[in-house]
């Protein structure tokens, strides 16, 4: 009898705790998706504020992607809408989160995944934390106690923020790379991909298939992060999953990166000038897929033209 009572008490305790966590999650959930509302990774999550089913191409990855792909340049040259959901140091579990969030409101035809994140180590712990935070967002947003005001507690969440450069982060500094193209000296060796990372990529592929999106792997130029062993690893993975794979580190003719001028931090990330070259290649690539339609003259997408104009003003020289 005493055991039954104790088990009952224990279950009550857990239920009460779950209730409390749900309640506090509601309180701590950002009421909009901008920086001031306390949204995590607000630039990437600006996609939540975009109009429903308005994004054609989704870019995922870590800082490599948000430094090298300029959605508004793609818009101006091809008329496709795209968004960069890149976050610094992104691990695949968060890539999955971003992808799921996007598919809830958007139906991009193409999803481009930067490959540096595929090799980034993450642990079961990361996954569990991400999963738990999906259900109880108090774990993700608890630090908002510092900035919250009383009257926003009861407001329903409404995502209205959109990022003015669609997730791209403008970097105009120049620090020449130490290594030049020799960082891609050929080898047969393959850098193996951790099992947990692989499984995550497989889930991403499945999610894209289910939502009718084509998944493309993409390696942006980086002397610091990329080499031939990694190329081989991703190429093998792409073959297995039947995905296309673009490695700009090998396409030096198509995308002639000038390592003296096109990198912001000695070959790690592209600066604006490097990003322009990368983006114009991607733009052309997307055109060649024949999957997307030019929307520049569509009046529903007027805001994109305005955003592009605004963006051009902030750039060192016009596109």
């Amino acid at each position, binding site marked *: 009898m005493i055991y039954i009572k*104790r088990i009952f*008490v224990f279950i009550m*305790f857990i239920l*009460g*705790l779950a209730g*409390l*966590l749900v309640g*506090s999650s509601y309180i*701590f959930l950002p009421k909009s998706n901008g920086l001031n509302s306390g949204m*995590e990774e607000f630039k990437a999550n600006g996609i939540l504020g975009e109009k429903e089913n308005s994004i054609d191409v989704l870019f995922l990855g870590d800082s490599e992607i948000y430094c090298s792909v300029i959605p508004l340049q793609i818009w101006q040259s091809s008329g496709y809408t795209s968004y960069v959901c890149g976050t610094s140091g992104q691990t695949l579990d968060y890539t999955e989160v971003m992808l799921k969030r996007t598919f809830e409101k958007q139906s991009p035809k193409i999803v481009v995944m930067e490959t540096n994140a595929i090799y980034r180590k993450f*642990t*079961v*712990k990361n996954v*569990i*934390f991400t999963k738990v935070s999906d259900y109880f967002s*108090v*774990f*993700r947003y*608890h*630090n908002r*106690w*510092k900035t919250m005001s009383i009257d926003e507690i009861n407001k329903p969440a409404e995502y209205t923020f959109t990022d003015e450069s669609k997730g791209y982060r403008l970097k105009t500094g120049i620090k020449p790379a130490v290594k030049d193209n020799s960082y891609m000296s050929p080898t047969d060796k393959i850098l193996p991909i951790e*099992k*947990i990372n692989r499984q995550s990529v497989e889930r991403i592929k499945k999610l894209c298939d289910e939502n009718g999106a084509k998944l493309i792997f993409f390696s942006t130029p980086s002397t610091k992060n990329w080499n031939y062993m990694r190329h081989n690893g991703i190429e093998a993975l792409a073959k297995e999953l039947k995905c296309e794979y673009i490695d700009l580190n090998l396409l030096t003719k198509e995308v002639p990166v000038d390592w003296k001028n096109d990198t912001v931090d000695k070959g790690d990330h592209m600066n604006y000038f490097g990003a322009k070259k990368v983006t114009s290649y991607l733009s052309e690539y997307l055109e060649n897929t024949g999957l997307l339609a030019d929307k520049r003259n569509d009046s529903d997408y007027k805001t994109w033209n305005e955003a592009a104009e605004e963006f051009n003003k902030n750039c060192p020289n016009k596109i």
Partner: protein
Amino acid sequence: MFSIATYFSVEALLLLLVTVALYVCLPQKARRYVLLISSYVFFFSISGKLLVFLLFSTLSVHHIGLWLSDVQNECSIRTKGLEREERKALNAEYNKKQRKIMAFACILHIGLLLLLKYTPFFSQNINALFGLLGLQLRIPVPKFLIPIGISFYTLQAVAYLFDVYRKKIPADRNLLRLALFMSFFPQIMEGPICRYSDTAEALYEAPKMHYGNFVLGSQRMLFGLMKKLVIADRLNLLIQNVYGEPNKYDGFVIALGAVGYTFQLYADFSGTMDLVIGTAQMFGIKLPENFKRPFFSATISEFWKRWHITLGTWFKDYIFFPVSMSKPMKKLTTKARKKLGNRYGPLIAGSVSLFCVWFCNGLWHGAGWNYIFFGMYHFVLILSGNIIEPVVIKITQKLKINRSAFPYRCVQIVRTFILVCFGEMFFRQESLKQGFKMFGKIFTDFTFKTLKDGLLFEFGMDRQDYLIIIVSAVLLFIIGILQEKGIEIRASIAKRNIAVQFAVYYALILFIVVFGAYGAGYVPLDPIYAGF
């Protein structure tokens, strides 16, 4: 894939849950194996193959213990019925043999610890010496992987052997019991350093899990989690900044860093101890306490009886008294007492032993001049405290100050706290030179300008962070006062009705969930003592 960085990890929690579930379900005889297997899984998940070091130490301790016991038995059989003189001669012979065995055991265990932990340090310093002498000679600086907890379990092993040697305990024939004593997973990483006579029997018995123990243990674990997540991790950025580039900051910020680090160290270490002792309590096993409200200490020597207690008593039992009671030291004491009187007579032998203790204490924390300095700092403080004590008594008597009155004690407590903070500052700052620079800056470059220009909130902690730290400090202070008064807080909560209990637990959990320094923008602190 299963790897544990700290006790404060999801993996460790999973292991604990599995262990608890098995422990509850299985009969008594199987429970001890559950504990042993969990302990080895825990060790393996942190240190991998280095588990062989623990196994080696366990086997060797088992064997040497039996060896000592055989010698002792043989001695007592052979001396039976002998005349006093003969008996004495034979005893001496056997004692010599035992001492040889002990010397061998010490070389083996402490030697291994020294080899793994200190070779890089010694070889670096020898190379530096060669350099000073103008020699081209250099010896290689090796880098070893160090099995987790080796500093802690080695001390347990040595204590066990000394206790057998001194006939305080009989040698254990049961390898399983010894293995459990050496490896029990909650305490393997950061102590408390246990004695065989304290825990071995209880671990082997693996008592039934009681609801009461389960509740009290989980309460304590929660409280430990609070200290670690809310306080220690939150202070991390500030501490990293101040100690990383101390030249950038003025004396006020450095003093803040010194106090902050002392508080962080306390929150981290005592929080971990709450978790460890709470876990053990869940299984019905009582581990020795490591902390007793150290910041209420009136003197440095009292502080060390309240901070990392098990290390202090280890040094006292196995270094201080053996050294001060050795024959030459005893002779010295007798002589000195005749000349210097009862007060200062024993101080000579005492200070020699005290020096040994604090040198070892410093070195035990790590191979670095900062740690050795830390040890010497406390040696000097404790020794000078002893020397001037009679003078202080005289002065206070003349001035008619009541030494046991509350205000006097408060002054003492504040003074002791400040001295401790200085010590911990040198302890944290890897470079001794930087440490002295920081020390100097506190006195020469002390301004309140960061308070006025708001820069205080620029290097790691913002206004709200400071607020939470202060609130938590007040909370710990109140709990500390209640504990000093002998109130058993956890037991009295557990006695209340279920609604009150739930409310307290929920409040604590929510406090941790909301005010814990985890997630974006925070870097969790690696458990400090696991590195020693």
